[in-house]
């Protein structure tokens, strides 16, 4: 169930690397890829405070926020991310997070559930490639659209 570019062009995505994290390469490649696939992408770049993600999402009425965290401290940076979204009136905005989400090599299941508990809709393990991200977005945003329609 993939969306066509037209449908994607109606969807706005916020991307960025959260916290004091400088790892821009993967985030930039991801942002480029999403744009190429037709999405409207607002790329905040590296070293982006949680607040800035949410500000941008509100301003652009974004459909999803894609948070990158590579440097290991994501667990601290992302802790209250969903709560902040809710405060800002983004109750059910789609939240993705990906990269190297914790310090050290840990079992992915633990890591994933930790981020689910924080309120992210999906967490992506190290090594995730862009086509997989696009597929997931198509799936989740179509669902959401239908949910809204209903």
């Amino acid at each position: 169930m993939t969306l066509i570019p037209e449908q994607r062009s109606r969807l706005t995505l916020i991307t960025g690397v959260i916290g004091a994290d400088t790892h821009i390469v993967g985030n930039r490649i991801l942002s480029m890829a999403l744009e190429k696939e037709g999405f409207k992408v607002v790329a905040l770049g590296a070293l982006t405070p949680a607040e800035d993600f949410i500000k941008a999402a509100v301003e652009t009425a974004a459909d999803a926020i894609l948070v990158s965290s590579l440097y290991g401290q994501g667990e601290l940076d992302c802790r209250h991310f969903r709560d902040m979204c809710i405060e800002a009136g983004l109750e059910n905005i789609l939240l993705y997070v990906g990269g190297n989400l914790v310090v050290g090599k840990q079992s992915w299941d633990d890591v994933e559930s930790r981020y689910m508990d924080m309120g992210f809709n999906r967490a992506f393990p190290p090594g995730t490639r862009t086509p997989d991200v696009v597929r997931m977005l198509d799936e989740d945003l179509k669902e959401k659209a239908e949910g809204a329609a209903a």
Partner: protein
Amino acid sequence: MVARLQPDTDELPFSDTRIPDDVFDAMRKKNLARWPTGAEIDLEEAAAYHRAMPQHKQLGWVMRQADAEGRCLTQPRGGFGTLELQKELMVCLDKEGHADIVPTTTDSYTRNEQWENAARGIEESKKAGRSMLNGYPMVNYGHKITRQLIEAIDKPAIVLSGTSMPKLTCEVGFASGYSGYLGSGLAYTTSYTKELSIEQGIRNYQYLDRLAARYDELGVELHRRQPGFLTGTNIPPCIAILTCIIDTLLAVGQGVKNYGLELGQTLHLVQDAAAIKMARELTQEYLNKLGHTDIFTPVTSLHWMGAWPYDDAQCEALVAYGGTLAAIGGAVSVTTKSSHEAFGIPTPQANAAGLRSTRMAIYLARHIRLDSMPEFQTECDMIAREVRPVMDKILEMGDGDVAIGTIRACEAGVMDIPWSPNNYMKSRVMPARDADGYLRMFDCGDMPIAKDVMDYHHEKLRMRAARDHVPFDHELAVASVYELSESLETLIPFPWAAE
């Protein structure tokens, strides 16, 4: 709330000249006042502490000695969020890893001077029983406690703090007894920051280098080091070397005499050997041009700094080969990684294993050198032909002032860096790997590199595009970012299997 540090612009006009003593004293006073542990520092006492250490724990001496004896020393990275974890780590790297140089990596909050966040990280780490920080919060602990780390090991120690705001960390680090310090104004600011200006980054490291020179005046030769690996992502030798030269000239301007050059490995045996040789040669060439004949600039080779494979066994080959490349290339030291690289900060044991595997590879490299190979000469010549016009242009743009020339060159894209997160960089230069595994430039942006040189790069990359049946475009650069992290099925499948 921390009293944010005002830019020093008000204090001094920006230039490459030495900070006058009185100004520097004022700067230090203001700087040390920003956090309680800063106020505790007494330079005289700290210098005495250094002088009392045995020579083999002083990195300035150890680097000179290794260079004289033709050795390749090993050094890992490593930092955890609490003193206890950090001590355990450093002892493990020293004893189980046989590290010749023991590191302390600071956490990213410390690097960004967010000391309250770091304090929170310490608490969270203690609660969680595991490190929630990606390094050791040195400023929070302060030099009195941190000296326990220096005293727990029998090797020289180095601070690794990827940041452009090192001013308080370096004060605490040196006062703690660290005799090595990695970091520089151009390299780190372009690779680790987004909104900080190159000028501000350089100013901050002028402070650090001026402080190192102060220790020199007090009879302590510290080892300073420049992170020419930059963004770690397919950095062509010429670009790394340009930053080596610039950062060295800036450090020397503040009085530093023992200054290391770091190069991330290209992973090509010949290109890395050429890069190591030319980094030192070209840096010395420009030092001499500017009248500096007594500066020690050893080269450190770093294990692959780009994306690693997600398979321990593949990583083990990158680790071991990293030792081979450094030793055959004639690097004075090698900075190691581990088979955990693609996943996360390694455990002390995995880190130590990476050190031992690298050390064995160094032993196996024996006394092999490639200088007699024509391909080696070709690469050396290419590097020189790429570096000189850009470097000369930078000096020209600064009317002889390296600091000013550098910021003007960055603005103009004359000095450029791939994959930079920094808003002040054009980051138009696009490297990619050619069919023989050499790093080339698909696009050199606005860097003044001769046409025939770029033709050579393009010809090589066209051959790769042809081999892979892909167009000759920017995607080559993206594919090259992933290349070394790909699975073996992708890299070398069994060639003849029935589909």
